[in-house]
């Protein structure tokens, strides 16, 4: 399955790493495998307000464009500009290649995310 302990996961196949009020967000190994070769990441805008469930950014593989839905509400305070030149990092190291940092406005939303065990089970059911 290839999961990282300590991260939180959404049912839309994003991972979240919490540091205080900040949350690093990326897509999971499962998601990158589904997408295939990623050739473009439309990086979100710093300072944008985002609500949980809104489109955070779009990740494009050769075949399709897939929206990444924000697992949390808050303000986008950092984006991973390295992905501009190296979108393939999302395939190669999905848990390193974060997309954005969201400074959370509602920490209780973290309770709605899954831990790695629950997410692994969820993925199995999806198969």
């Amino acid at each position, binding site marked *: 399955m290839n999961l990282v302990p300590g991260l939180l996961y959404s049912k839309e196949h994003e991972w979240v790493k919490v540091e205080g009020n900040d949350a690093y967000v990326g897509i999971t190994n499962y998601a990158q495998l589904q997408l*295939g070769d990623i050739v473009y990441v439309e990086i979100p805008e710093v300072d944008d307000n985002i609500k949980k469930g809104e489109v955070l950014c779009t990740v494009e593989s050769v075949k399709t464009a897939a929206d990444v839905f924000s697992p949390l509400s808050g303000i986008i305070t950092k984006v991973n500009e390295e992905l501009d030149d190296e979108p393939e990092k999302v395939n190669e190291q999905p848990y390193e290649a974060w997309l954005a940092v969201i400074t959370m406005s509602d920490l209780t939303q973290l309770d709605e995310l899954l831990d790695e065990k629950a997410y692994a089970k969820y993925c199995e059911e999806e198969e």
Partner: protein
Amino acid sequence: MKKTPINELHKELGGKLIDFGGWELPVLYTSIIEEHNAVRENAGLFDVSHMGEITIKGRDAKDFVNYLITNDIKNMKEQQIIYTPMCYQDGGTVDDLLVYKKNEQDYFLVVNASNVLKDFKWISDQVKDFKVTINNVSNDYAQIAIQGPKAEMILQKLTSTSLQQITFFTFNEAVDINGIKALVSRTGYTGEDGFEIYADAKDGSELFSLLLHAGKDHGILPCGLGARDTLRFESALPLYGHELTKDITPVEAGLTYFIKPEKDKFIGKDKIVKQIEEKPKRRLVGFEMIDKGIARSEYTVLDEEGNKIGFVTSGSFSPSLQKNLGLALVERSYRKRDTLIYIEVRNKIKQAKVVKKPFYKKKYKK
């Protein structure tokens, strides 16, 4: 879902199967880009058994086929192949296809998978007084394409028939491939040299395995529909449903080379000849994204002021050229190279410029 004779093997090979117009086929095995590169650099193997085959035989076969299509088969030799659009009376496209000439009274048409039934009905409805017999033999065949600079060398290992004798757009219908009888043509849909092989459906799986094995030390990869699409796209080969539809004429799609207006009569002639003379209002152009982003099929194309001037027919990241490219049907005045156009990508306007097509220079062995 319909399955090709090679379906089980695709599963064993780890193919990621999808529903492609009712057919269960692999979109990829490992990676579209790896498979794409294998075809450009070495060789790739495709199951294209979903393609349709229709035979037209009889006393009037030659005249009838020529009446159906825009290209001209009058001077074709036996064992020769031509590419041609086939049109409705209004000039819209029924399909684009290959015509294989076995003899003056026996033609073998290879049509798009999604159009087989439509084409068969359309062709049958045009017969009237022509003395011909038409058969849809699509289920009888497994079709495999081996494409790439090493295709000839790999296939040659399995047959005593000299493949050099099968020149570009010709075929040999009695090739023995390690005991399997097949029709082999030097054709393809990738912009590379290569062959398409038609064998009895029951031999499909064995033939696919044989070719994979023969190419093992030469970098051959089984390839899915994903790579098939990026390869044909870079070579600007039209895909029915995108660059050609019932609402797009071959003149608009830039296929005038495959239209012979001097021909006595063919379906759609009046409309098509008029459009060639008056010049079409819309033209298919190639474009390259200047702003970041990938244009996809059906996205709107705008002028500088935001007026709609057309739409994208195909768009992708190009693995060979490492650029984001597209094909679009736009108003004729925007067809010139370096003209700036604007693509609406998810509510954002992105700048692009018209470039020459094909994007990738075809490497046919002629």
